[in-house]
């Protein structure tokens, strides 16, 4: 394999870690609230749009604008939990899953409509002052490596948080057995809110990291949601570990498909790959029963 092939792997890994960051939030929210948050990608875009608007029109320093963007995204996440999903929590079982999915979809349509009509040109690109190195005549942006490292660190911290801290263990216990967790005195509502905040924080960071390696525009939300959902499905929708592995896998596969057959057909091929994966392993690559 030549150097450009390696570059595609690097591209794929970076995309994969970003997708993992988005999908992990989805997985955790689904585990705790039984709601598949279809507006997850849209709130990512809300954050990047806020940051980009602040940068363009108020001349706020980069870091402050990005922080404001993160705040907006987290605020949107809390809004979804507290307002949009309120009627959903009164239901149980399949009905809750269905309505949760549907309500967040409706919210994402609403948000998308507002964002795309109000800020149609709010693109966010973060240019890091990192050098471009020359590798056998092929130019490698170190920003890419930095982005990959950054998101890997966040994923590692998240992993440790879930494994080691008391809060993390409480979240995992609620995902595994809600009744059992309730019996030992874990407050479901508080952790549900916490998980929404955490998920929104991760998705906001994913948006910023994505804008280091590429441009995030107001129309990208839907795409992020879908890719993250595919990651969730392939990873087995309850497992954070599986989601991270699946994220990397889908990132690399997607980048390679783009390299081989072009952007437009890559989606079709990716969907086919996901279909085949699910036929072989119906419960995701980690194989946890639902």
């Amino acid at each position, binding site marked *: 394999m030549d150097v450009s092939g390696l570059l595609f792997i690097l591209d794929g890994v970076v995309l994969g870690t970003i997708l993992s960051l988005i999908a992990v939030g989805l997985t955790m929210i689904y585990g705790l609230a039984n709601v598949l948050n279809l507006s997850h990608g849209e709130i990512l875009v809300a954050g990047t749009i806020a940051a980009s608007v602040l940068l363009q029109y108020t001349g706020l320093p980069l870091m402050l604008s990005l922080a404001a963007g993160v705040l907006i995204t987290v605020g949107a996440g809390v809004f979804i939990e507290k307002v949009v999903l*309120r009627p959903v929590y009164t239901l149980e079982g*399949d009905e809750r899953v269905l309505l949760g999915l549907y*309500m967040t*979809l409706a919210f994402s*349509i609403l*948000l998308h409509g507002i964002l795309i009509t109000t800020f149609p040109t709010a693109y966010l690109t973060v240019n890091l002052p990192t050098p471009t190195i020359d590798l056998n005549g092929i130019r490698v942006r170190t920003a890419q490596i930095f982005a990959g490292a950054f998101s890997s660190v966040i994923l590692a911290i998240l992993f440790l948080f879930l494994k080691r801290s008391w809060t993390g263990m409480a979240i995992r216990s609620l995902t595994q057995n809600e009744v059992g967790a309730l019996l030992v005195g874990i407050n479901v509502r508080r952790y549900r809110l916490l998980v929404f905040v955490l998920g929104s924080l991760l998705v906001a960071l994913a948006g910023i990291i994505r804008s280091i390696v590429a441009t995030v525009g107001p129309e990208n939300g839907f795409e992020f949601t879908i890719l993250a959902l595919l990651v969730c*499905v392939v990873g087995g929708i309850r497992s954070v570990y599986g989601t991270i592995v699946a994220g990397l896998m889908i990132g690399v596969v997607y980048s390679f498909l783009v390299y081989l057959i072009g952007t*437009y057909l890559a989606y*079709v091929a990716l*969907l086919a790959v996901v279909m085949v994966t699910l036929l072989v392993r119906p419960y995701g690559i980690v194989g946890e029963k639902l």
Partner: protein
Amino acid sequence: MTEYLTLQPMRVRIIALIVVWALHIVLPLALQGVPYVVFILTQMVFFTAFAFSFNFLFGFTRQLYLCIGAFAGISAYVTGIAVRDGLTGVLEAVVLGTLLTTALGWIVSVLSVRRKLVVIFTGIFTLAITLVFNNMVVGLVSITGGETGFRIRLANLGPLEILPTNLRFYYVVTAVLIVLTAISYHMVYRTKVGYAYRCVMDDEFSAELVGINVSRVKTLTAAFSSGLAGLTGALYGLFNQLISPSYYSFSAIDLPAQIIVILGGRATFFGPFIGSAIITAVNEALRFLGPFTQVVYGLILLLLLAFFRNGLVDFIRRRVVSWFY
């Protein structure tokens, strides 16, 4: 839910259905002189058909297909390309498009009933299909004409040519709609399969326990409804004589169809008809909003889901009909 379905006299339902059909046949004849109204009515019937297809999937078997627009679009593009390039005749092209979407809908359903979390899986998968469809149509410019799409000439509809131009498509779609409602009505209320349907509607788990093959009911419904979406989509393309991605996007077809179903009442036969009539009127009233319509539709869908999930038909049954007894 159950008691309303079984206790309500069958005759009332049949009479209501016949009244709705008669209205659909007579109304455009009365308004024939106003081409714009006929155009709007045609659009309404198309959306009734899309909503009917979504309703059959979502209402009757709880499969959330979020790709009605994409299915309609796939079929329309197949038809349009075949007609444009002279590969086949119009009829063969429409049949081809319909068969293709039937197969596609069936495959998605087969894949998703393999997993027990059908609801989520179907939702994700069909959303992905919508995304893929949009990307392909915009990307493969040489075949599909990209963003702007392509024009096709007015199709020759054979014996229907005696009708005035603006009424032809109206009657074609109305005929499709009437035939399909009749078939599905017969299936749901008159046959053994219908019992299976109603069981699955009420409680899938119990249905499975009494020995109903739930997966088969679901996959067959998916094939039937996707076929309907495909057929309607192909006709929609021929009617518009312009096939472009904006006509088949999520916000152009799925969103109105879903609002129609939720507003009218899911898992009912009249829901799509009632919802479609109301949404057509609302759409005309909101025309001045332009691209902002999507926001309003999103809000309407959100509010309907939160506060009016059971729809108008259920509301009428519970609140209005009870006055008379």
